[in-house]
């Protein structure tokens, strides 16, 4: 095994790229869960965002338009989830699972014509002088705008949840929807807004994956990233900065795995491919082991349906 073939700066760079879609999706789901809704359809919203973004980038060549289209596609699927769970009172877990399957199906259908096609959308930041600094120049100033957007989004979500009144209301709705209703807050409206935001973020993550990370359309290309995003939310104990950490940790595991495969480590590649998912399960088990702790962090009304009449 030749470790000298690995360049730490390159590794770090690809780690950030691998973590960004996870971060987008996890931030969105974090807000959704803070409002008391469990949307297990992240995977479906991501892949719909991926094909939406890919198709748009294929047609227009614009990263900004692709990002918008991805977010829109994710939000559209989320709107379906909102309608079913908040107005038709369907079960959140079952609806979320159905959303994943539905999203995967729709994405394959739409993506038929794009199978195997590649993209050439380059929108890397290039600041003369700064980006040219050896090692850290490219790491800090050489990314595409969406990477910076994901970091800004983390800060904004943190600020929204902890410093803004709207965020306080959202947390209150997730904590005790009966009480929030009794005081006079529109529980349903808050939740629908959160669900749409979560969908847009998942879609954005999917678009990033298909347009920037691997600019190539492959059926089912999200490959479980939506589930990892869900796991990151629990890992993060519903805190935005820990979600950032979580996304980078999980992104890192993916990159290490890929690089080990490339180096020809004498383990079956299937084991390496499993690694990120095994780590996910392991982390969830460890985190949930302390029952009291887990219950304190989780929004108290997570996944509970709210009947406005009572």
């Amino acid at each position, binding site marked *: 095994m030749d470790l000298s073939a690995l360049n730490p700066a390159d590794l770090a760079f690809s780690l950030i790229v691998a973590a960004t879609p996870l971060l987008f999706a996890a931030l969105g789901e974090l807000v959704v869960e803070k409002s008391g809704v469990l949307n297990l359809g992240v995977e479906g919203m991501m892949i719909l965002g991926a094909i939406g973004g890919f198709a748009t980038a294929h047609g227009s060549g614009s990263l900004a338009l692709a990002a918008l289209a991805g977010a829109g596609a994710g939000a559209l699927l989320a709107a379906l989830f909102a309608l079913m769970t908040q107005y038709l009172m369907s079960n959140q877990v079952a609806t979320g699972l159905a959303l994943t399957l539905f999203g995967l199906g729709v994405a394959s259908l739409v993506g038929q014509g794009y199978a195997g096609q590649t993209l050439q959308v380059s929108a890397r930041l290039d600041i003369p002088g700064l980006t040219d600094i050896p090692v850290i120049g490219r790491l800090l100033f050489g990314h595409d705008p969406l990477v910076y957007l994901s970091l800004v989004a983390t800060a904004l979500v943190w600020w929204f949840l902890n410093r803004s009144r709207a965020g306080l209301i959202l947390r*209150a709705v997730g*904590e005790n929807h009966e009480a929030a209703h009794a005081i006079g807050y529109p529980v349903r409206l808050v939740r629908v807004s959160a669900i749409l935001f979560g969908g847009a973020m998942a879609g954005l993550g999917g678009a990033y994956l298909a347009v920037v990370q691997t600019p190539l359309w492959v059926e089912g290309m999200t490959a479980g990233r939506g589930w990892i995003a869900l796991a990151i939310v629990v890992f993060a104990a519903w805190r935005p900065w820990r979600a950032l950490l979580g996304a980078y940790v999980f992104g890192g595991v993916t990159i290490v795995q890929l690089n080990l495969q490339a180096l020809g480590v004498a383990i079956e590649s299937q084991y390496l491919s499993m690694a990120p998912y095994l780590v996910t399960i392991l982390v969830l088990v460890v985190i949930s082991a302390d029952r009291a702790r887990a219950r*304190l962090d989780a929004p108290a009304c997570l996944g509970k349906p709210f009947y406005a009449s009572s």
Partner: protein
Amino acid sequence: MSERSANGQALFEAKSLRKVFPGVVANDDVSFAVGAGEVHALLGENGAGKSTLVKMIYGLLRPDGGEMRLRGAPYAPARPGEARAAGIGMVFQHFSLFEALTVAENVALGMNDAPRARALDARIREVSEAYGLPLDPGRRVGELSVGERQRIEIVRALLQAPRLLIMDEPTSVLTPSEAETLFGTLRTLAEEGVSILYISHKLEEIRALCSAATILRGGKVSGRCDPRAETARSLAEMMIGRALAAPKATDWKPGAARLSVEKLTLPSAEPFGVTLRSLDLTLRAGDVLGVAGVAGNGQDELVAALSGETRTRPEAIRLGGAPIGGLGPEARRALGLSVAPEERLGHAAAPDMSLSENTILTARGRAGLASRGFLRKAAAEGFANRIVTEFGVRTAGVSHAARSLSGGNLQKFVVGREILQKPDVLIAAQPTWGVDAGAAETIRGAIRSLAAGGAAVMVISQDLDELMEISTLLSVISEGRLSFPVPVADITVEQIALLMGGGARAEADADA
């Protein structure tokens, strides 16, 4: 009423209010008026329509008929926010608080135009000190006692300078001294000209505090009076529309030990739970042990340990000498230990299952509602009907979901279900919480006769008057410690109040 028209215009007036829910007229032709600075009592049994009425005043429900007036002007709030803006504040019976949020965040949520965090902290301190309701704005609500939680609700309402403050059963969870503090606050407010609409089951309180009362029965106004000129008994009779049976003094001859707990120490699994510390107690046949104490001092944990929801070392709990600490609820039930937990929906009863199905959940063994793995539906229905008749549960039939019953009615059903199984030991948590005077009498009578028949009973309650009335022995739980049981005849309310304030620990330390 003439009294109020004498001091000029009433602050708040309801005229012929009507509210209909599918199948039930909750309020019918309800009219009353509250003068400025008046403490006005709203009395009525469970299901009399008090909650519906105050929800309409607070903008949570819209009346189907009639009108409300505030300072003479028409008043029809569409949302609680509008009610608050109009000067109406409300303190809920089941607090509308958020455990994971801080005191200040909780207060901010209940205000229409909350100031910035730092200014709000200062105002919370200011108002809470001015009215003798000390509060730390930075604490998480989950860590606070019930009394402190209620202060949050009151301070939240006061910060908006309300003209009418609605209090829904405010003292049901307070210690006697906390209740005294609250009365002081309410009197100060009334002197400042704030009107208070006071809902309570505690008739003595209403007599001490209120200067007018409107009594509701079956959704209609059944009477108006000045509670200061009435007795608690006459108020209760007006409320239920018939004479109350006087409680009989119990003949108490304790028999053999039924249930004994020895050195039970149990850390709580809940984030804001209480650790039980070295509990010792013995329940003999014929005993009714009243456990007093402020909510959140280990009552829930004690009930869970006794019911078998939390397992302990087998020898820590013995039922008739046999170690049962390691057994689950079903096994304990089979041996004769029944539990009626405090939370009715979701803990004592499955909300979406019918009443007869709910009887099967705990009574299938002792009442023979199942045989060879098959349910005996007819027997279950018969058993459920017996509970309904004997405990006066108001329901359209036993095939209706538990959820459809009002809180007090479901409470009667749950307690009745356990009592009719004729257990050797009954643990009842808050058996009459939210139950009206007539039904509470039925439940207490049933508990007494169960004990008289040779069972041992433990009643955990925050209602001291109730404990003094039905218990033979009394003990206080405080911070997870249980004081040594004393015969009720030998203890005064003042001594209990002292124990509730943490005296149990001082006593335990002195013993050690």
